[in-house]
């Protein structure tokens, strides 16, 4: 029996898991439309590879990964790309992002795909294939899996932690997945074990999921994968918290688990890897819990890109919806619009009602009870962070390790004054990021400006050098000049007088040029032309004579 460690704080919110965990999960029918945002993961957005009007097959690449931290996006079914245009994406800002819109043709026709013999290829190739298959962490953070397992040569993974804790209330996707597809998950874990070569593999599952624990135990029988039952406590499903519980090791501030010899992946990620390796299918669907104010809360396997509207309809929403939560009630995003698509990171949609989710109680001033500090799983001082965020003293928030906050919401849950603490922390974080971006932009602008000033200086210098070189060439060619000058304007001049010689040379050149120049148009004329010219000249003389006379007349008339 393994002795478990524990993390600081934690809370016991009402679980609400039984609503959706008892029905077998079903597969959603083909939706009428699929909307696939290009940015569904942490890192750089994918680069679109199709255009409107293209016909795509199920599993065909829509957008390829660009950069190291990125993942590809594939067509979840066969159909026609109707548009590549912005559409509101599941993000707290509710702003539009570029999406590929697909109209399914109903045939659900697969592109050629085959299982992967992953043990026969080098690990780097397998990682590249995971990147091309768009596999990202499905626990919520959507961190590309290939990045997580790209280990430096001196890095060794001691423990591979598989996260089946699923601590957030209402959500039961991992629970159902472990109950129904335990063997498949273990197949995926084998791939991760091949990549990380850990000394031990632990699957952490909260003790409120006894069937899932039993199913996983049965699937792992005979292998050295250990199923560890952990006490139910929110947020034990947080990566850093689960690692602390299972191994007693603490991920250092700003560090990654791989830095302390631990790799951590979600059970749903392991399942997605199994689909790719054993069936050749890229990540095009996932399990989602539909729960809350609906007739039949349940888990549904849904194609990525399905509008939430069509997904919620499958669970028959009840009247009285007051909004929706994408994700869990503790960390999810509150949305009003159901036209948003399902993305790789979506694990749950909760339909809110006034009864299930009463409006937040009005906040009162902080009374410094420090209950939030007692509940904080990251061992921070939320009350201090709150004051500094409120005063916009961002330097101080960073001194108090704001960026170690996992935004789990435990502090706000226990706050007797109902202060929306997490909102303050998110505000402070995004302000700090904004400043960081501005500082970087200023740094680039400074570099560019300095380069420009240097370039202008250099151009000036080069011009001066060119002129000097020309001058030098001219003086070097000087001795030849007097010889070419047969006529001396001033015979008394000193032959060594360079100025005089230069003038002479110039005169000679001018004369030579005049000699070689084209004849003027008044030369070599025919007699008729000469006569005509003479006639015109005569007329011109006459006119000028008349004009001068007229002027004289005017003047004389003025005088009189």
């Amino acid at each position, binding site marked *: 029996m393994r002795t478990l460690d524990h993390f600081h704080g934690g809370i016991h919110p009402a679980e609400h898991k039984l609503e959706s965990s008892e029905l077998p999960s079903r597969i959603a029918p083909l939706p009428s439309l699929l909307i696939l945002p290009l*940015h569904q993961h942490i890192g750089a957005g994918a680069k679109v590879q199709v255009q409107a009007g293209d016909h795509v097959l199920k599993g065909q690449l829509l957008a390829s990964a660009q950069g190291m931290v990125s993942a590809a996006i594939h067509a979840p079914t066969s159909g026609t790309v109707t548009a590549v245009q912005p559409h509101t*994406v599941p*993000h*707290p*800002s509710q*702003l539009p*992002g570029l999406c590929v819109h697909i109209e399914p043709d109903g045939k659900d026709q697969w592109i050629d795909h085959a299982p992967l013999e992953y043990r026969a290829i080098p690990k780097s190739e397998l990682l590249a294939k995971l990147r091309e298959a768009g596999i990202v962490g499905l626990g919520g953070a959507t961190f590309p899996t290939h990045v997580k397992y790209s280990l430096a040569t001196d890095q060794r993974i001691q423990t591979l932690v598989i996260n089946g804790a699923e601590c957030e209330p209402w959500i039961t996707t991992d629970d159902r997945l472990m109950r129904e597809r335990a063997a498949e998950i273990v197949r995926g874990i084998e791939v991760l074990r091949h990549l990380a070569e850990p000394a031990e593999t632990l699957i952490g599952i909260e003790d409120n999921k006894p069937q899932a624990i039993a199913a996983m135990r049965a699937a792992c029988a005979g292998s050295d994968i250990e199923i560890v039952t952990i006490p139910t406590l929110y947020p034990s499903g947080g990566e850093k918290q689960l690692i602390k519980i299972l191994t007693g090791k603490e991920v250092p501030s700003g560090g990654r688990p791989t830095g302390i010899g631990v790799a951590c992946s979600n059970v749903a990620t392991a399942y997605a890897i199994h689909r790719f390796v054993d069936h050749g299918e890229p990540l095009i669907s996932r399990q989602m819990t539909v729960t809350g104010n609906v007739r039949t809360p349940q888990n549904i396997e849904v194609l990525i890109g399905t509008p939430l509207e069509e997904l919620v309809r499958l669970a028959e929403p009840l009247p009285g919806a007051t909004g929706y939560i994408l994700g869990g009630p503790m960390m999810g995003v509150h949305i009003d619009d159901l036209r948003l698509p399902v993305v790789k990171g979506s694990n749950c949609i909760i339909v809110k009602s006034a009864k299930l989710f009463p409006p*937040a*109680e*009005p*906040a*009162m*001033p902080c009374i410094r009870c420090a209950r939030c500090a007692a509940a904080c799983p990251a061992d921070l001082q939320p009350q201090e962070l709150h004051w500094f965020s409120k005063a916009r003293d961002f330097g101080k928030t960073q001194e108090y390790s704001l960026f170690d906050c996992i935004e789990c919401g435990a502090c706000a849950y226990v706050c007797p004054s109902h202060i*929306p603490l997490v*909102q*303050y922390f*998110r*505000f402070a*974080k*995004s*302000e700090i*990021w*904004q400043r960081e*971006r*501005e500082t970087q*932009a*200023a*740094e*680039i*602008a*400074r570099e*560019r*400006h300095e*380069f*420009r000033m240097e370039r202008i200086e250099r151009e000036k210098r080069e011009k001066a050098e060119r002129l000097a070189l020309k001058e030098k060439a001219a003086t070097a060619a000087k001795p030849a000049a007097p010889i070419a000058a047969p006529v001396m304007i001033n015979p008394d001049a000193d032959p060594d007088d360079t100025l005089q010689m230069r003038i002479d040379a110039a005169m000679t050149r001018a004369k030579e040029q005049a000699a070689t120049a084209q004849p003027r148009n008044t030369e070599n004329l025919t007699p008729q032309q000469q006569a005509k010219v003479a006639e015109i000249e005569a007329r011109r003389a006459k006119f000028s004579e008349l004009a001068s006379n007229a002027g004289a007349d005017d003047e004389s008339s003025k005088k009189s």
Partner: protein
Amino acid sequence: MISALWVMVGISLLLGAVLGYSAIKFKVEGNPLVEKIDAVLPQTQCGQCGFPGCKPYAEAIAKGEADINKCPPGGEDGIRKLAELLGVDYKPFGEGAGPKAKAVAFIDEQTCIGCTLCLQACPVDAIAGAAKQMHTIIASECTGCELCVAPCPVDCISMVGLPESIQTWKWPYPVYALAQPQTPTREMPKS
């Protein structure tokens, strides 16, 4: 008495030599304060402060020749940072000299005649083009300084505000109603 005097003279000569040597050896090139001030400035090189660029303005502040509230792109935060750095009081922007929303220049390519005047005005080389060729702004490098707007002989450059994107979106400052204070129902103990 004399020996004490000699000792004091000796010590002062020795210390003087040490100080003189370190003044040469550890001489600080340039004014480090200028670098610090320059690091706070937003580097738009826009000249709205009345100096030809951020560095000259930083130098002027360091010499005490310029006020700290002359940099609209830096915003009020910029003034606060300068005030903190220099140990002076915060000073609000003058009349009509507030910060503007971030914008980038845009060249109407139908109208551009390819005169290169804007290329010469841009302090960060954010305009691509050549003589008698159409010019265009490299939006990602544009600092929004507006220095290219005035030189354009055909007025084809305009400033376009940057729309908010998912990458630049910020969580708003939490605004919520505080609970109304309830009148105390408990009776005050009578002494």
